[in-house]
């Protein structure tokens, strides 16, 4: 197949400059990496504007950008649910209610919290499943990215994989989390500056916002109006599924317990900054649809291959973004857009790698394999884990290459672990009677419930109007199973002494009174963010 995009020397200069700066930033941070906490948690010293942009960027991987543009071309403005109801309430909850437990207890990772709140077994279950899933996801997104570059730019799969993996390896190896975070901030700006031109030119070509609306199906412009029943909207999901499955379980499970994002907030310089991290990140998060949903809608309005023909073949939605680049961007700005995409890919991958090396070193290696070694030993192990984490990801990328269907399964399996985990955290943090073994068995039952539901859906025992609806309801039932069984088992097993739970559970933790002024108060930002989200939903009702 002939590549649809031809880059020229200017484009390559832009790409090259990005790679160079990324590596320089990583190398320049090397001298600050003296202890393991410097490497894994940036010495808890970063201001909140940096951690909040990194918090957002780590989640804005290329798979996410391309996939959400594809969703938007397929489902229209319904895609905003992933950014508004499916993210903002959870981010606010993390900032206002959960962050104090993560930050003030000085735990170094999410699994470590589970150890103190519950027991070693619960931590082990979470740490091992998280470490494996993180590397698999990083390999999968690397493969997806390389495949896209092969088809559109004509780069070979191996050269894309090696280039991106090597760059991420170098900068994470030298600067650890700090370097990952610093680069995520740079990547944040490149993603925006790289993707905005296609929105600008596309809107110009289509005749402004009104022109866009007149050229897409009417149901593509409403976020809630067609959600009454699953058969009325292109997504095949009703509002209950969106609110309970996506808005509550999947979103809270991801944003409040996934160490990949929580780690960014933990790197903040103080508790108040840590709490502001997800809250400040929620504002740019609400704007992300401008660069992902709008290009998808533009693709439907402007590119003939995305016109919906009843009964016709289904277009390859994943190519929507890159085809928009190919049709509307001249060289120069084209290089910037590709750099933005590469940046989003690297930020996602580095996020996975830094979360992996921390959980591996503190929660697996340092807890089960070699306890009580000097700190320098763990610092070295962190660097070593970075190397083999990247190598393992590359391996995954090639496995997925031979079995492309694996990709869809993996995404689903990931939700097996995230969705129930939120119930375990919720009960752990807010109900002091939750017992260690209640937590462990509840989590295991929740994961099994997700797996059982998945098998039942595959065997057509339960039915939904779409795959997405199945996914949302699966998350919901897994959460319910975890929630109910954790409570039941907690009633029959031995509790931890209250003295052991101080700082870990709401009600046993002294309230911190902050002397910050209004603009530094987390509650102010939380309320403001919620209000803006509600207004946006009303505008696009």
């Amino acid at each position, binding site marked *: 197949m002939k590549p649809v995009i031809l880059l020229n020397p200017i484009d390559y200069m*832009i790409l090259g400059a990005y790679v160079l700066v990324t590596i320089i930033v990583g190398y320049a941070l090397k001298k600050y990496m003296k202890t393991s906490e410097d490497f894994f948690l940036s010495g808890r010293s970063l201001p909140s504007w940096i951690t909040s942009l990194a918090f957002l960027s780590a989640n804005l991987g290329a798979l996410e950008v391309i996939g959400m543009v594809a969703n938007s071309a397929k489902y229209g403005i319904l895609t905003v649910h992933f950014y508004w109801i499916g993210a903002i309430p959870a981010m606010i909850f993390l900032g206002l209610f959960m962050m104090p437990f993560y930050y003030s207890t000085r735990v170094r990772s999410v699994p470590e919290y589970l150890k103190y709140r519950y027991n070693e077994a619960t931590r082990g279950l979470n740490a091992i499943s998280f470490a494996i899933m993180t590397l698999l996801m990083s390999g999968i997104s690397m493969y997806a990215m390389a495949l896209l570059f092969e088809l559109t730019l004509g780069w070979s799969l191996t050269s894309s994989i090696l280039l991106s993996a090597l760059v991420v390896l170098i900068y994470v190896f030298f600067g650890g989390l700090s370097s990952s975070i*610093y680069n995520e901030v740079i990547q944040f*700006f490149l993603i925006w*500056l790289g993707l905005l*031109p296609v929105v600008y030119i596309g809107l110009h070509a289509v005749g402004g916002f009104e022109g866009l609306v007149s050229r897409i199906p009417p149901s593509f412009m409403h976020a809630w109006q067609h959600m009454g029943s699953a058969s009325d909207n292109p997504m095949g999901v009703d509002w209950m599924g969106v609110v309970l499955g996506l808005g509550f379980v999947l979103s809270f499970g991801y944003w409040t317990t996934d160490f990949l994002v929580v780690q960014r907030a933990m790197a903040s310089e*103080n508790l108040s900054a840590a709490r502001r991290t997800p809250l400040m990140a929620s504002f740019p998060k609400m704007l992300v649809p401008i660069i992902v949903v709008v290009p998808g809608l533009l693709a439907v309005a402007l590119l003939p291959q995305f016109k919906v023909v009843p009964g016709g073949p289904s277009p390859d939605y994943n190519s929507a973004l890159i085809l928009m680049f190919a049709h509307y961007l*001249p*060289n120069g700005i084209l290089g*910037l857009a590709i750099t933005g995409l590469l940046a989003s890919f690297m930020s996602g991958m580095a996020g996975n790698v830094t979360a992996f090396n921390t959980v591996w070193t503190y929660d697996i290696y340092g807890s089960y394999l070699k306890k009580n070694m000097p700190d320098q030993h763990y610092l070295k192990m962190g660097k070593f884990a970075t190397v083999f984490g990247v190598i393992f990801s590359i391996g995954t990328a090639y496995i997925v290459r031979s079995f492309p269907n694996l990709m869809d399964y993996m995404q689903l399996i990931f939700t097996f672990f995230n969705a129930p985990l939120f119930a375990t955290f919720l009960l752990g943090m807010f109900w002091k009677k939750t017992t260690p073994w209640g937590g462990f068995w509840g989590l295991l039952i929740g994961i099994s419930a997700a797996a059982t539901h998945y098998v039942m859906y595959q065997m057509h025992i339960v039915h939904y109007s779409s795959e997405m609806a199945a996914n949302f309801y699966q998350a919901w039932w897994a959460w319910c199973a975890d929630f109910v069984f954790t409570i039941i088992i907690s009633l029959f097993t031995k509790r931890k002494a209250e003295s052991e739970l101080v700082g870990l559970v709401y009600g046993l933790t002294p309230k911190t009174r902050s002397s910050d002024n209004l603009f530094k108060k987390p509650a102010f930002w939380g309320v403001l963010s919620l209000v803006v989200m509600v207004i946006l939903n009303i505008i696009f009702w």
Partner: protein
Amino acid sequence: MENTEPRRHFFDLKIPLGGLLGFYGLLLFFYGIFGPSDIYDKSANIDVNEIWGLVMIVVSAAFLFSAFFGRRAKK
């Protein structure tokens, strides 16, 4: 607990960030002015390189200025 002293600050991120964006801005701006003009047929006849180059120069200047004056203010 609350407000533990940050132990140290790393170098100021605004400098490499502003530098990179400034380089991109200048490159795109001059390519937009002196480069070929037929490539803009695609982009609805907008010289997007020139316009976006200027935007990026402004963003970059904002970062570099705030890094420069932020440091002076601390001293």
